[in-house]
């Protein structure tokens, strides 16, 4: 069985094996194999192309940009998404502006081990897709399955634009697949993860699995919930969202991010402005609470959306 984490490792292995322009750069990713072992054995297999970086997120991204200008395809590992804020300047002001300013694209992939896990606490749990999506010039993806982790990372390496690859740590070990696909939906296309008729849940990342569990719970109440996995939050597949809402008339957006200005806010804004007439009820959303991510597992479990809080929200939506 291949885990989500192993899929990420295998995608990097394949990228290194098939494209001489690819190299990996990040803290502890060399012979140690990375904090999560996403690069295990790769430095031995590809000598000189899996490089340990000093503890310098700003320089790591800055160097990747220069390398990309020279034709390389760097994949950068942030040890945790949370630390990418120390490299924010290079990502949003340099990588994201380069093509617009100079017509020279910036093909870097920045891997962000994202999202909450039990005991992670305020600085090892953040979901930052919305802030990166805010800046023009970046592609931001949030694979929620083993298959997507693999194919989207390989696709990300081939994209000429900078890609922020938000891989979810909660999914690293327990999501498993038998085989890895060769072909997949392209980045920019959402997927109907579960078909339904009574309401649409739009979600991404680890929340896909909580949402699917919630949808299963609502089957007992006689409801068929459609679940849309965004896969990439920028570009955002608004057409697929609107088509689903056209079928169900009801919308619930679910995200592990904080509520202010995030992906749920963007999806709601688009449906309200582009598809108001499709709605039979006011749309709703469920986000993490608006506090730092708590450390204690009991607090954390109540901080993030879960199948039961999502199911409760969906029941309210269905009664509107």
């Amino acid at each position: 069985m291949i885990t989500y984490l192993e899929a990420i490792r295998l995608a990097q292995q394949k990228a290194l094996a098939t494209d001489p322009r690819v190299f990996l750069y990040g803290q502890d990713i060399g012979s140690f194999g990375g904090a999560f072992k996403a690069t295990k054995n790769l430095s031995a297999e590809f000598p000189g192309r899996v490089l340990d970086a000093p503890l310098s997120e700003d320089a790591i991204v800055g160097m990747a940009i220069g390398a990309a200008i020279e034709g390389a395809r760097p994949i950068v590992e942030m040890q945790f998404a949370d630390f990418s804020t120390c490299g924010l300047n290079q990502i949003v002001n340099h990588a994201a502006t380069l093509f617009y300013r100079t017509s020279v694209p910036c093909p870097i992939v920045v891997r962000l081990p994202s999202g909450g896990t039990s005991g992670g606490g305020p600085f090892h749990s953040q979901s930052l897709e919305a802030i990166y999506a805010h800046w023009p010039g970046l592609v931001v993806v949030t694979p929620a399955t083993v298959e997507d982790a693999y194919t989207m990372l390989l696709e990300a390496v081939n994209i000429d634009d900078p890609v922020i690859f938000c891989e979810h740590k909660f999914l690293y070990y327990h999501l498993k697949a038998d085989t890895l696909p060769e072909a997949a939906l392209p980045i920019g296309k959402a997927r109907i993860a579960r078909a339904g008729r009574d309401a649409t849940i739009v979600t991404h990342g680890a929340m896909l699995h909580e949402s699917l569990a919630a949808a299963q719970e609502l089957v007992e109440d006689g409801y068929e919930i459609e679940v849309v996995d965004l896969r990439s939050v920028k570009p955002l597949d608004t057409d697929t969202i609107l088509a689903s809402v056209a079928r169900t008339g009801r919308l619930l957006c679910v995200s592990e991010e904080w509520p202010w200005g995030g992906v749920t806010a963007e999806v709601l804004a688009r449906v309200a402005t582009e598809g108001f007439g499709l709605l039979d009820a006011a749309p709703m959303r469920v986000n993490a609470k608006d506090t730092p991510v708590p450390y204690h597992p009991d607090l954390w479990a109540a901080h993030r959306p879960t199948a039961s809080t999502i199911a409760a929200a969906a029941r309210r939506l269905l009664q509107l």
Partner: protein
Amino acid sequence: MSKKIAPVTQSDFIKAYRVMLTSRVLEEKLAGLYRAGMIKGGVFLGRGQEALSVSVGIQLRRGDIFAPLIRDQGGRLAFGDSILDTLRTYLGSQLGSMRGRDGNIHRGRPRDGYYAMISHLGAMIPSVAGALLARRLKGEQGAVGATCIGDGGTSTGAFHEGLNAAAVDKLPLIVVVANNQYAYSTPNTRQYACADLLDKAAGYGVGAHKADGTRLMDCLQTLRNAIHAAREGGGPQLVVADLLRLVGHGEHDDFAYLDPKLKKSAVGSDCLLLAEKHIIEQGWHTADEVAAWRRETEDEVNATADRVRREPLPDPSEDDWAALSRPEYREQYAAS
């Protein structure tokens, strides 16, 4: 170090002087255009820093990388930028290398190794380092990369992280600090507490070179040494040149905070006048010949400005407004 470093010759000096002169004349034109309200955006000049800047750009080779900063008009011209493209960006011509999307000191042609700085000071240091790393991974040898920064920029995290990371990988990077005594209005006493900015080199484990930024000969020789050391595998080289910004931070700034003692001190000399004096005193050229060079340059700059003023401006209805290279990723639901 294997090969011997050639001494700077009369012809090197004169060639560099001519670029300094072009830079000075061009910047005087820019200042005039700014006062006439014809410039799009700000004007930040390198007056007093031409000797240093030209010494960097002119001694790099084809295939090297140069990431100039705010006050590097001289180095830009020396590295291959033109009067024409300079004026195009400042005057907002659509034909400029940045097509109106960015301008002035942010211009560049990354494909030619001429990087386009972002405003955020220090950011170009790791990027040039990364470019050199990529060259190494491709198996290319012999190229170096140079980037410039001010005294203020040495206080950024990017300077620290970039120079350190370059040193760890022993990359052929030259970081040139124009210690012009001010960062906007902030004097060096509020910028750093080490005795000399060059002291930082030891901390990073990189080569250290000091230049008198007012003396072209010294700048040329020092940069030649630093570039040579980097090219020969000596790892990053830090060059610190002391000089004085002879103008305000930008043309909007009256420089009222300038300490008059600095102006009268050694750093306050004008490198262009000193270089000119050297040429005449050495008997290489007469004062009349030097004056004729200036008139020639002025004519070229004026004619180019007249031409550029007739060029088309960027047209918002023609711009594709694309921040991503892939058309299918562009926002189709942008609120407008």
